[in-house]
Every structure is written in C-alpha cells, then in structure tokens.
C-alpha cells in the first residue's frame, strides 16, 4: 500500500511522525522541567519542616525538669545559730539593720550542704555505700540557697523537718534522660557509679519526679547551677531594647518617610537620601554593631552591654525598613483623596496628617511589627557591644547590664555542659520563635482587621 501513496503524502506522514517524536521529547522535557520546579518547592518546604521538627524534637525535653523531693531537717546540731535578732525597745533602725545583716551573714557561713547531704542520705536506701561528694552531686548547687532562703523567711523551722522540692543537678538530668551515653565507662561519666545507682533508685521510688520547667521562665541565667538557668533576664533585656526600638524607630521612620515622600523637593539631595536609605537597608547587621561600639560606647561613653546601646543600634538598623515600608504605603494612597483634601482648603500638612496618614496606618503598623520582629532575632551587632557578658540579674533600667534572648541562645550553645545545654538552647530557640510567631500573627491579624474597617 505504501508505494501507492504519492511522494507528497509520504512526506506528510514522515513529517507527522517526526513531529510526534519531537513532541514526545518536548513534552518529556516539559515534564522534567516542571518536576524540577516542584522538587525545588518540596525541598524548600522540607527544609522549613526539618528545621522546625529538629528544634522542637530537641527542645521539648528541656521543658521538663527533674525535681528532687526531700525531707529537709533543720538540725540544730549542724545549724549552730542564735535566734534572729529581735528589735529591742529604743534600738535605732540602723543598729537593728546591722544586727539583722550580721545574723544573715552568720547564716550564710553555716554548712547548708551538710543539711542537704543528711536528707539525701536519709532518702537513700539503707546499706548503700556513697560518699558526701557523690550524694551532693545529685542535687543542683543552688539547693543550699533555696534551703537557706526558706530558713531566713521562717527561722522557727530550726529543729523541724519539712518536705522540700529541689532541682536535680544538670548531670543527674543528663543521666536520667539518657543525654549522656549510659554505657560509657566510669572515667567518661560525670557522676560516680554510686551516684548513678542512687539516681536510678530515686527515679524508681519517686523521690525524683518530672515536672514542667517553670524555672526556664522565672529564673535568670546561672553558671554554677545550670539546671536552674532561665531566660527571665534575657527576656527583660530584649523587652527593654524592643521598647527603645519602638519608641525611637517608629516616629523617626514615619516622619522621615513623610518628609521624603510628601514634602521634599525632588532634587539631587533627596535622590541621594533615597539611595542612601536603600543601601542602609542592605548593610550587614554586624556593621551596625561596629558603629555602636565606636560611636555609642567608645565616643559617647554609654554603658557597655546595656539595653540602651543595643536598642539604639537596633533602632538604626530597623529605621530603613520602616521608612521604605511607610513610603510605599504613602505612595499607594489614591490621589483623589489628596486632591479632595486640598480642594476643601486643607494645607499640605493638614492633608498629610489628617487624611493620608490615617489611611496608611495598617501598613505602617504591619511594617513596624515586622521590623521589630526582625530586630528581636538579631544577634551579631549585640555581640560587638558587649551584650555577651554573663549577667545573672534582671535589668531594672535600660542602663543596667543585660543580655538578650538571641544572645542567650548563643551563650548557652557554647556552654561546656553540652549534653545538658543542647536541649535547653533548643528550648530557648522555641521561646524566641514563639515570640516572633506571635508578633507576626498580631501583624497579620491587625492588618486584616484594620483594612476591613478602612
């Protein structure tokens, strides 16, 4: 049959076959290309999922702490102390204060570890050979402060026995959770063999229980007692800085955006300012830290590692973001609104402040919250202005030494007790991310609400 066809028909069939073959190839490459795109998306989404799952998986265990339930006896044989001073009639205020202070000093000199050791030994099963050092290594080192504070608050405890909940030490926690390889030999273990046996015993008989780690939220950082280390100080430090950023960056940023967008004559100078702001937005954050170190600390002698310097540095860093966002929002306001205001006899200032600015409020608010969220997670510039110093106090004013949440994360990940601090760092990251997610959520919510109303 084929030879019956004319050459023209033959050519047409050939061409169709050729096109078919070509099309198959082209569609294949189309699908490959599309598949690659999908793979890229899945990869990116996978990274997000992996990051979050990894942090959460590592961090969640750190939100439980191991509590040690002990019966503490304030044994007068160990605690040889006079009763607290009572204010005598006619005694001056200062004298009474001095006597009280002396009493507290005497208290601090007592061997509180002995008290804890005794109660641990009482809780241990009879016949277990264990020395004092191994016993004390089970309780966190701040236990003696806790016990002493209870006594200061209530001196009548002398000679009595009370049930107390103390923190188990970081090494004990590592052993209980299996953060440290249980099969390692004695030489590599932080705890002695007898202490490890006793801990297992305690877990079995309920002397050690697990509870939610409120200490992460209520305590400040601690080096000597890692199990009690918390985020409160860093959190307050961050709060101070964010307050400064909001108070300074928002008015200045919005004002300069208004000037540039509405008032500035179009000249080379405003062009220069515009280029300048765009570049400032892309300057690496660490350079702002250098500026802070040289200008604020070295030149102006502001206090080192204080939230005020951190707040100023982060303000300068956030400003371009707010300026650019506000300018965008102002640009988006319809000209009809402006002309209507001007037509009614409003001056230019009145037009801007009474009519244009209120319309842009949702966008400015969103930009502010996003800028603050960004500043919240910034670490590098804070390291340069000395905020990585160890601070074990809640900063009462912006001039006090402080640290910040991201810097606390940096400090904790560098702690020598890796086994204990790795989960705790992940927990701190979870707190930081939670704060940021909340901020972003608020921004989205406010935006949708305000835009609906407008």
């Amino acid at each position: 049959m084929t030879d019956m066809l004319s050459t023209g028909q033959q050519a047409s069939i050939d061409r169709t076959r050729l096109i078919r073959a070509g099309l198959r190839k082209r569609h294949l490459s189309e699908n490959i290309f599309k598949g690659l795109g999908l793979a890229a998306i899945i990869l990116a989404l996978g990274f997000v999922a992996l990051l979050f799952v990894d942090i959460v998986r590592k961090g969640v265990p750190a939100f439980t702490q191991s509590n040690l339930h002990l019966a503490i006896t304030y044994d007068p044989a160990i605690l040889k102390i006079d009763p607290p001073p009572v204010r005598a009639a006619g005694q001056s205020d200062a004298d009474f204060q001095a006597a009280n202070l002396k009493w507290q000093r005497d208290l601090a000199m007592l061997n509180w570890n002995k008290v804890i050791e005794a109660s641990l030994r009482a809780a241990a099963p009879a016949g277990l050979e264990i020395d004092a050092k191994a016993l004390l290594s089970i309780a966190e080192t701040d236990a003696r402060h806790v016990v002493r504070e209870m006594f200061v608050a209530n001196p009548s405890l002398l000679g009595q026995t009370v049930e107390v909940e103390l923190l188990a030490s970081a090494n004990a926690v590592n052993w209980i959770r299996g953060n440290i390889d249980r099969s390692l030999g004695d030489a590599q273990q932080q705890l002695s063999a007898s202490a490890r046996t006793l801990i297992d015993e305690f877990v079995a008989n309920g002397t050690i229980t697990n509870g939610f780690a409120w200490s992460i939220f209520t305590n400040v950082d601690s080096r000597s007692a890692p199990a009690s280390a918390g985020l409160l100080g860093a959190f307050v430090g961050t709060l101070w800085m964010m307050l400064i950023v909001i108070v300074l960056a928002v008015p200045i940023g919005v004002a300069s955006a208004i000037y540039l967008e509405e008032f500035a004559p179009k000249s080379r100078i405003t062009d220069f300012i515009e280029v300048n702001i765009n570049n400032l937005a892309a300057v690496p954050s660490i350079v702002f830290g250098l500026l802070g170190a040289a200008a604020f600390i070295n030149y102006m002698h502001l206090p080192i590692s204080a939230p005020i310097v951190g707040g100023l540095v982060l303000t300068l860093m956030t400003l371009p973001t707010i300026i650019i966002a506000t300018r965008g929002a102002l640009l988006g306001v319809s000209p009809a609104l402006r002309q209507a205001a001007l037509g009614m006899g409003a001056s230019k200032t009145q037009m801007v402040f009474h009519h244009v600015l209120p319309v842009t409020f949702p966008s400015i608010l969103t930009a502010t919250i996003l800028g603050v969220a960004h500043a919240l997670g910034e670490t590098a510039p804070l390291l340069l202005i000395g905020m990585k110093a160890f601070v074990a106090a809640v900063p009462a004013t912006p001039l006090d030494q402080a640290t910040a949440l991201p810097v606390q994360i940096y400090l904790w990940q560098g702690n020598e007790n890796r086994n204990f601090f790795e989960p705790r760092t992940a927990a701190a990251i979870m707190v930081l991310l939670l704060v940021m997610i909340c901020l972003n959520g608020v921004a989205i919510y406010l935006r949708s609400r305000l835009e609906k109303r407008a």
Partner: protein
Amino acid sequence: MNSLVIAGLLLVLLGLAYQSGWSRSRGLSTANGVKVHSRPQYHGSYVAIWTLVPALIIIALWAWLGDGITHNFIVSQIPVETVQSLDQVGLNATIARIRSLATGYGVAGEILPYEQTAGDALRSFQFITFLIVVVAAAVAGIVALLYARGRITARLRARNAVERVINIALLACSAVAILTTVGIVASLVSEAYKFFTFIHPLDFFFGTVWNPSFSSTGGAAHGQYGLLPLLVGTLMITLIAMLVAVPVGLMAAIYLSQYAHHSFRAVAKPIIEILAGIPTIVFGFFALVTVGPFLRDFGSLVGLDIKATSALTAGIVMGIMIIPFVSSLSDDILNQVPRTLRDGAYGLGATKSETIRNVLLPAALPGIVGAFLLAVSRAVGETMIVVLAAGNSPVLRGNPFEPVATITVSIVNQLTGDSDFAGPQSLVAFALGLTLFVITLCLNVFALYIVRRFREQYE
C-alpha cells in the same frame, strides 16, 4: 528623680501654653467677629512651641555645660596643696569619691575631713544649681509664653508658623538616616586608619597569614593580620551558599509563578518565606547540632573526610537561609516581564518550559542577576551561622570540607565589647568592617542599578 521633675515641668509648661493660646484664640473669634486666620489649636501649638523651645534650650545648655561646672566646683573645694600633690588619676579618683559622698551612698575606706566637707558642699551646690536651672527654665518658658500670647491677633498666621516647625522636625528626622551612614563611614574609617598606623595596608590586604597575637606586652609583636585567608573563607562559603540557594530558589520561583495553582501558591509562598524571618542564630544552631554531624557521618560513609564544622556546613545552611530571598526577588522579576512576550511564544507553539527557558528567563536575566548579587551581599555579611558552624580556622586553603573563618567571624572574635580600642587586636575589627562595608556596598549599588534598569526597560 531630677529627670522626672524636669519632665513634669515641661509637661506643665506645655499644657499651660497650649491652653493659654487656645483660649486666647477663642476669645478673639468670639469678641469682635473678625475672621481669624488660624484655628484655635494652631494658636495653642504656636504658644506651646514658643514656650518649650527656650526652656529646652536652658536645660540642654545645663546638660552640656553642667558637668564641667560641677567638676570645677569640686576641684575648688579640694585644698590647693592636695590638688597639687595629686596626679590626674588621683585627682579623678578623689573627685569620684566626693561625688559618691554627695549622693549619700558613702565610699570605701576612711573619709578624709576635706572630702566630707567637699561632699557636703557639693550636695548643696547640686541642689541649688538644680533649683536655679529649673526656675530659669520655668521663667524663660513663661516669659516666652507671655510674649507669644501677646502676639496672637486675628491676623497672626499661626498655622503657617506651626507647619514650618513641623516641616523642620520632619527634615531633622530624615537626616537621621544620613547621619547613620555618616556615622558608619566615619567610625569605620577613623578606627581603621588607627589600625593602619600599626599595620601597613599592604600587609593587611595581601597578607596570607591571620594570626593576631593577644600579647599585652605591646611593642613590635602585634601578630599578623593578613586578610586573604578570611576573604577566601568568605568567598568559599558564599559560593556554596549560592550553589544551594540559586537553583532551588530560582526553580521554586519559576514553579510558583508559572505552574502552581494559585491556591497552592497562596500556601507555599508564605511557608517558604518563614525561612526569611527565622533569626540567623537559629540557623547557626541547626547547622551546628544537626547539619554538621550529618555531613560528617555522610562523609565517613562515602569515604570523605568532612569536618562537622566546615565551610560546607555553614555554606549549605546559609544557602537554605537565602532561598526565600532569591525566590521572592526572582518571583517579582518574573512577574514584571510583560505578558505579551509570553503570549507570543505560546502563539508560536512553544511549550511552557520552552517559553520559560527561551523567552522569559533571557528577558528577566538582568533582574535575576541583580537579585543574585543582592543575595551574595547578604551571604557575605552573614555572621551567626558562620560563627557557630564554620569552625573558625583562619588558614588559607581551598578545601570546603575543612573549617574556615570569614571576615564577619573575625570581627566578632576581635571585638568582644570589653576591650579598649588601643591595640591592633581590636582595631582590626574596624578595618575588616570597612572591607565588608565596601564589598557589600559595591554589590548593593551595582545590583540596585541593574534591577532599576531592568524595571525601566519594561515600563
């Protein structure tokens, strides 16, 4: 306490002035039916500005000069022979003691009789001067208030005056951005200049050994400050990051903007952009505890010696961080290519991928290159991931499986905040910062130029 008093005074003055101007203006409009130029709140603001400015000037003058005056007062209280017997440091210590005596906190050690009298004198001096300043500020404010109030007439163009002040305030605010840039450049250049008085610029920019010695003996032994190992480390990590971020980010942008159903896009795009909002310290931790050990184990599986903290670890994680940056910029750029170009290609029978590869990408190329340069600049300036995961080993070598150090890491290591800026050990941070600033500035300016040219092309 003092600042509270001053703030209270200013607030009272402000309220008083505004109220007085406002009521005066109301009086004008009701009294004789003349058309008043400005509305009452402008008259109020006019008087308030007139009142606050002199009061603020007096307080600012005191804040500026007061410290010197107090200093001179204290010196005058110390017996002359004591002043002469003390050197500068001793004198400053004595002054500090007297100051803390005056605050009532007391000082350590025995209090000398002249210190006690000087402290008491200083306390009363401080109280009196504070009173004088507050009273002077109040008087100046009230005088100005009365003057401004007297100027209020129906024809006074109070609105224009107030608006001029607002304008000046706005201009001052937009000067802050300029001042920031000036501050950055000035502090980097001046401190870097000090550094170059210790180390020759050629030794810095072309030195191949980075070994800052922390000997506090001074003298000739400053250590070696060669930039090249850090520069190579920075470039290596940036290259790895771009190798991760560019293919993934670009393909993700192409898929999202050309193929994806819009509901899928609405979900996937924000999730990818979450990556951009995560603090870099979190990526650093992720790199250190998860990616690094994984790469090391993977390396030992295939017979490669990959260190847990290496250029590869930091580079890959940094790439992940930059993905949303590349993808959203590329997405914007792709969307700006006119539809007609695409429709033309479809009309000729091209498949979607052929259109993208042969029409869309070439048209968008300049913009995408600009986006990549912005991403490079971000990677070069990134700090925390590298501090945590790159291993800090400033040795000149080309093996990405080994630890490296970058410019940013060295800045953090050299400038810990508690060192004074005396030696090259800490000053080098500013020379490095200047280098970094110049590199990123060039990249940014060039990239923004390209992107702008690209936009103009299709407008």
